[in-house]
């Protein structure tokens, strides 16, 4: 069936919204793409949350080595690509904000309220995400990670309600054909523009994690080869207030197990068997970079204090006195992996202090915030 575009929504005091481009099919197509993008962001974001705060039932493997760099890279890249989708989606339904009468019934009021929650939560997620990767925290009066996590549930809930309410309109829009307009911007033209915008944003930012594209990462917050020793840094030694403790010649790493406790200086750590691994640092902010790390296998240290390296769980603590990420737990899957190192060297040189000198954790398939730097203490526990 061929139909002409929907008539403009009736509003009372707003002058007019004359664009004939606004239509249910346009809103549907953009909305479907946006729904898929939000789904991808929700799943990858939830995964990242579970890896960092694992409940008892959760399990995350040590291999493939770069899985987290992919899931989190996809999370941030997809989130950035939603900017034009969300913009055009909201433009296409903006006249409905001025629907008259504003409330027809209790059901209508509830539906409008849920749409309000959806729009607020969607804007919250996209804007807070963009601010976070730009490290601009001042406009956000809350701790980003926690806010972004709970509002994600709010957004997904409101999205499910919205799809449920709009399902007949979605089905109708997908089933029918509207008459093409001979002049002016067509729906296809607009959708092409939205896709081009999303594509351009991706091309100019994704090089922060996809190394071959780093040369055109003009608008990426990170360049994978820029930083001390050619590797980006998230938290510096000064920001962690750990510089003097890390550079202290009297440095000792305490390793304590169920049976015994040892204290190792840097020379003692260097005297243990050294192993080299190529592993990525994969930041929650969506950048990643591979480097060559050399150091002591974590499982060797576990065995040194008399614990079973196949089954032990390890807590790694930084020399940092305070800070949200001063300690991390290494589950058995990662402890037993021979690639999990207490690294002393990066690309053959001693670690830069901003990369965790004298010793840092580097494990496969793990978020960067859990790769604890400036290790002061390692506590080995038995099987969970």
């Amino acid at each position, binding site marked *: 069936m061929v139909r002409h575009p929907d008539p403009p929504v009736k509003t009372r005091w707003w002058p007019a*919204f004359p*664009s*004939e*481009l606004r239509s249910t099919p346009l809103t549907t197509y953009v909305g479907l793409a946006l729904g898929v993008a939000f789904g991808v962001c929700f799943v990858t974001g939830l995964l990242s949350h579970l890896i960092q705060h694992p409940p008892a039932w959760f399990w995350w493997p040590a291999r493939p080595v770069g899985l987290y760099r992919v899931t989190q890279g996809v999370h941030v890249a997809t989130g*950035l690509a939603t*900017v*034009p989708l969300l*913009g055009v989606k909201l433009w296409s339904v*903006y006249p409905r*904000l001025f629907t008259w009468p504003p409330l027809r019934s209790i059901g209508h009021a509830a539906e409008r309220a*849920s749409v*309000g929650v959806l*729009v*607020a939560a969607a804007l*919250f997620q996209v*804007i*807070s995400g*963009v601010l976070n990767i*730009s*490290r*601009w*925290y001042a406009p*956000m*009066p*809350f*701790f980003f990670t*926690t*806010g972004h996590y*709970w509002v994600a*549930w*709010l957004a*997904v*809930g*409101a999205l*499910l*309600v*919205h*799809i*449920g*309410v709009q*399902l007949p309109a979605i089905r109708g829009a997908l089933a029918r054909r509207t008459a093409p307009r001979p*002049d*002016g*911007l*067509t729906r296809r*033209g*607009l959708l092409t*523009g939205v896709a*081009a*915008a*999303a594509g*351009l*944003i991706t091309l*100019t930012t994704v090089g922060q994690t996809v190394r071959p594209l780093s040369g055109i990462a*003009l*608008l990426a*917050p990170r360049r994978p080869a*820029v930083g001390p020793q050619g*590797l980006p840094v998230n938290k510096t030694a000064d*920001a962690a207030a750990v510089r003097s403790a890390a550079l202290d010649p009297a440095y000792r790493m305490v390793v304590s197990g169920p049976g015994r406790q040892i204290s190792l200086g840097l020379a003692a750590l260097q005297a243990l068997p050294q192993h080299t691994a190529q592993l990525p640092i994969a930041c929650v902010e969506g950048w990643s970079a591979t480097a060559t790390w050399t150091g002591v296998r974590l499982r060797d240290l576990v065995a040194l204090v008399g614990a079973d390296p196949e089954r032990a769980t390890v807590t790694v603590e930084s020399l940092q006195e305070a800070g949200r990420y001063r300690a991390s737990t290494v589950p058995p899957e990662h402890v037993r992996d021979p690639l999990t190192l207490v690294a002393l060297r990066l690309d053959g040189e001693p670690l830069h202090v901003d990369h965790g000198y004298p010793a840092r954790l580097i494990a496969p398939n793990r978020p960067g915030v859990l790769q604890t730097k400036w290790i002061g203490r390692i506590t080995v526990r038995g099987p969970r």
Partner: protein
Amino acid sequence: MRIRAALIAAGILTMLYAVVGGLADPGLERVGVLIFLVAVLAAHDAVWMPAVLAAGALLTRLVPRRHRPAVRVAAIVAASVTVVALPLVLGFGRSADNPSALPSAYGRNLVFVLLVIAAATLPAIGRGKIRRKKSERPHEGGDDPADR
């Protein structure tokens, strides 16, 4: 109907989980989150969208009818890229002790990307001219409604 009811019920339960879970999480600054939710909604609906509509209306006045589709697409792409790049260009996230964060010259890079968008738009405008010469449609510069 059953699918719709299931979607709506699941959505309401998920939103309830967000509210209850968020309130129970001592790490969540609820007032701050609420302020930001309201602020981004108000800023979008009362500031950003009127500005977009005004820009669209201006574009209709300034750009000849036959060039409008290409210019409109270019404007959408440029606005999207600028939204993503603006926090980087402003550079409040830079810190003296960490030169690896925000390492690029984002202002210059954004200008370059905008010029690339403009350059990619020119051929489309050229094609519009040729098409117009061939068909010689009579109405010129009329009010194109496809913008606001």
